[in-house]
C-alpha cells in the first residue's frame, strides 16, 4: 500500500542522521509499528524534582509517624484504592488511572534520575544536555514513529526546559535521533507562573506564532520543495535548514490556533485553574486535538534552584509546600485534563503518563523534608486503552522497597509504546549506524 517513492519530507523525517538513511529500514519500521490499535497521541506529565510517592499515589497510613508524614489517605472512586488526601479531585478519576507502585532505579541525583526516567536508560558519565550521544526522550522517540506529513511538529514541550541551578539538563531532547526530533519548546501563554521560576527558564524565548501573510506564500513554495520526491539532485547539506523552516511553517496553521487559549470556552479554562500549571495542561489537550502526536508538560518550576521554588524537590518544608503550593495546582490541572479528555472522547486515544525523577525518602529529615529516593516510587498512566482503577505492584509497609512486581521506568515506557502501537523492540540506528532497540523494558500488563 505504500508507494515506493518517498517525498523529501518523509526521507528527512526518516533518516537517523544522514548515515541511517535506508528505505528498507523505513518500510520495516512501518510494518513493525503496528501492534495495538488504541492511542494516537500521548501526553507526558513530568514532575521535575521528584514527586513523593507517600504524598501522592502510595500513602502509608500504618507506617510509624516519623515515616508516614502529616497527611492522611483518602478513598478514591475505586473501592480499595487510596491516594493522598490532598489530591481529592484526581481521586475521583481513579477509575481512569493505573497506578504503578513498584517503580525503581538506582540513580539518586536529579540529572541522573530524570535521565533514566525520561529516556528509559541510565545516563553516561559526564552527561551533557546538548550531546547527540544522549538517548532520546520518550516524547522524542514517540515522534519518531509519527506520520511526517501530518502538518504538525512531532513533539512539543511545555512550558519550560528543565534546569538544576541554572544548568540545562540532558534527557528531554532527541539525542541521537537528531535535531529533527528535539521536541519543540513552547511557552504557555497564560496563567500565574510557578513560584521561583528562575532567570534561566525565564530567558527562553517565547515562540512567536503569528505569521505575516506575505511569508505564507514563500512557505507554500517551500512545502512543495519539501514534498518533491528525492531525485537525482540531493540537497542533504540543506537538511537542517529545511527542517527549521519546515517547523516554522508547520507551526503556522493548526498549532498556532491551538496555541490561542483565548479562543477556549472561559468555563473550561477556569476548570483547569488560573495557573500556568493548569493552562499548560489545557494547551496540551488543545495541541493533541490539533494533531500533535506527543506533548510533554513540565508540571512545576523549570529550575530546581536549590528547592526554593514551586518544584517537587522538597528537601525543606515538604508538607506545607506540598499542601499549599504544589498539590492544589497538580490536583486541579490533572483532574481537569482527565475530565476534558474523557468528555471529548479523546482519552481512549490519548495515553497520559506521569513521570518523575524518583520518589522521596521514607524518613523525614530534620528540615521537615524528604530527600531523593529511587529504590521505590510510584508512577501513573491513563487512557490509550490502559485499564483504569487498578494498582500494579506494591511497595513494602514503609514505602522503602518494592514488595511485589518490581519494575523500571523502561517498563513504563514500553507500556506507553504498546498503547501507541509502537513495537518497543524495533531496531533503530544511531549516527554511527549502531543498532539500538527503541526500549529495553517490557510492557506492564495494564491493558
Amino acid at each position, binding site marked *: 500500500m505504500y508507494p515506493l517513492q518517498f517525498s523529501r519530507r518523509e526521507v528527512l523525517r526518516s533518516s537517523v542522521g544522514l548515515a541511517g538513511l535506508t528505505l528498507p529500514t523505513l518500510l520495516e519500521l512501518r510494518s513493525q509499528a503496528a501492534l495495538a490499535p488504541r492511542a494516537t497521541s500521548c501526553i507526558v506529565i513530568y514532575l521535575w524534582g521528584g514527586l513523593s510517592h507517600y504524598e501522592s499515589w502510595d500513602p502509608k497510613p500504618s507506617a510509624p509517624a516519623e515515616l508516614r508524614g502529616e497527611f492522611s489517605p483518602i478513598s478514591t472512586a475505586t473501592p480499595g484504592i487510596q491516594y493522598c488526601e490532598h489530591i481529592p479531585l484526581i481521586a475521583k478519576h481513579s477509575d481512569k488511572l493505573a497506578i504503578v507502585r513498584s517503580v525503581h532505579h538506582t540513580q539518586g541525583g536529579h540529572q541522573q534520575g530524570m535521565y533514566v526516567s525520561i529516556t528509559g536508560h541510565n545516563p553516561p558519565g559526564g552527561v551533557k544536555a546538548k550531546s547527540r550521544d544522549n538517548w532520546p526522550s520518550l516524547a522524542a522517540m514517540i515522534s519518531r514513529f509519527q506520520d511526517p506529513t501530518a502538518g504538525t511538529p512531532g513533539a512539543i514541550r511545555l512550558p519550560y526546559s528543565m534546569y538544576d541551578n541554572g544548568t540545562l539538563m540532558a534527557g528531554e531532547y532527541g539525542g541521537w535521533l537528531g535535531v529533527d526530533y528535539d521536541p519543540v519548546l513552547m511557552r504557555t501563554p497564560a496563567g500565574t507562573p510557578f513560584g521561583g521560576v528562575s532567570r534561566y527558564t525565564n530567558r527562553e524565548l517565547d515562540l512567536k506564532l503569528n505569521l505575516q501573510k506575505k511569508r505564507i506564500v514563500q512557505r507554500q513554495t517551500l512545502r512543495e520543495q519539501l514534498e518533491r520526491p528525492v531525485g537525482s539532485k540531493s540537497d542533504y547539506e540543506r537538511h537542517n535548514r529545511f527542517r527549521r523552516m519546515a517547523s516554522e511553517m508547520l507551526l503556522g496553521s493548526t498549532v498556532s490556533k491551538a496555541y490561542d487559549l483565548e479562543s477556549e470556552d472561559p468555563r473550561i479554562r*477556569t476548570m483547569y485553574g488560573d495557573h500556568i500549571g493548569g493552562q499548560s495542561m489545557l494547551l496540551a489537550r488543545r495541541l493533541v486535538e490539533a494533531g500533535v502526536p506527543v506533548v510533554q508538560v513540565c508540571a512545576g518550576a523549570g529550575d530546581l534552584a536549590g528547592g526554593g521554588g514551586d518544584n517537587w524537590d522538597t528537601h525543606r518544608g515538604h508538607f506545607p509546600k506540598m499542601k499549599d503550593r504544589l498539590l492544589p495546582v497538580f490536583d486541579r490541572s490533572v483532574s481537569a485534563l482527565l475530565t476534558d479528555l474523557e*468528555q471529548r472522547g479523546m482519552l481512549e486515544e490519548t495515553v497520559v503518563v506521569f513521570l518523575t525523577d524518583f520518589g522521596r525518602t521514607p524518613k523525614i529529615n530534620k528540615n521537615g523534608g524528604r530527600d531523593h529516593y529511587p529504590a521505590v516510587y510510584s508512577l501513573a498512566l491513563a487512557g490509550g486503552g490502559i485499564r483504569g482503577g487498578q494498582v500494579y505492584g506494591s511497595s513494602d509497609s514503609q514505602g522503602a522497597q518494592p514488595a511485589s512486581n518490581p519494575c523500571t521506568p523502561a517498563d513504563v515506557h514500553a507500556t506507553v509504546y504498546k498503547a501507541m502501537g509502537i513495537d518497543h523492540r524495533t531496531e533503530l540506528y544511531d549516527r554511527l549506524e549502531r543498532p539500538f532497540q527503541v526500549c529495553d523494558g517490557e510492557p506492564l500488563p495494564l491493558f
Partner: protein
Amino acid sequence: MWRLNETSAARNWILLLAAMLVTGLHTDAAAVEKETLAAIKKIGGTVRLVAGNRTEWKVEFHLGGRQLTDKDLVHVAALKNIASLNLRDTEITGDGLVHLKGLTKLEWLHLERTDIGDEGVSNLAGLVNLQYLNLYGTRITDKSLDQLSGLKNLKRLYVWKTGVTDEGVARIEKALPNLKVIRGVDLSNLPASVPSEPEKPGKPIKWIAVSKASEAPKSENGENTEVVFENKSDRKVKIYWVSYGDELKLYGELEPGKTHRQNTYANNTWLISDENDKPLGYFIVGPEKSLAVIPQ
C-alpha cells in the same frame, strides 16, 4: 501414459485459467481500491490500515479534511472495509449519514462537533460492530439514543454538549448494560472565571544614577524574587543584569511609560542604559517583590 498426460495438461490449463481469472479480478479490485484511496486523499483524508495486523482501514478527516461535505462521503462508502472513521469538525450533516449505512465493519466512529441532529442517526442503527461512537457537540436528543439502543457491541457513547437528558441516557444504559455513556461536565455549573487575588505592588527600591557601568556593583546572590521596572522617563531604555562575574547581560528594552516584570534574585544589580548603551543608573533588588522606577 498419454491419456494421463492429457488429463494432467488439461488440469494445468484449467489451473492456469483460474489463476489468470483470480489475478484479473484481484487487479480489478486493487485498481478500484487504489482509485478510492486516491479520491479520499484528494479531499484531505488520511487512510491507514488499522494497527494490529488487521486488514481494515482507518480513515480520518478531522485534521486535513475538515471541508468534507455530505456528497464527499460517497468515496468513504466506496471503500467499505473501514473499521475506524473520524469525521470530527467536518462540514457533514445528518443527511450525509446515509452513506455510512453500508459500513457495517465500523467499530470506531467520530461524528463529534458536526451538524448532526436526530434526523440522520437512524442510518447508524445497523452498524452492529460499533464499539465507540462520539456524538459530542451535535444536536442529537434522546430520540437518537433510542435509535442506537440495538447496538449490542457499543461500549462508549459520547454525548457532552447535546440535547440528551437523564431519561434518555437511563433508557439506553438499561438496553445496553455494557455501555458507558459519557456526558461530560455541566457547563452551566462552571464559573467563567475565578476571582484572582489583587496583585501586590512591589516595594519601591532606590534609583542610583551613574554615568559609568563600572560604578554599578556586581550582583550578590539571594533568594528568588521579582522586580517590576517602570520607565517614567521619556525615552527608550535598555535593561542589563550585572552578573556575579561582573559582566553585563542584556535582558530587554523598555519603551517610555511601559513596565516590565522580571524574575530575579535578591541583592542582584540591574543597570539601566539609554538606547546607545550609555549608563543612566542602577537598582539593587530587595528581599521581596521590588518596584524599580526609572526616573525622568
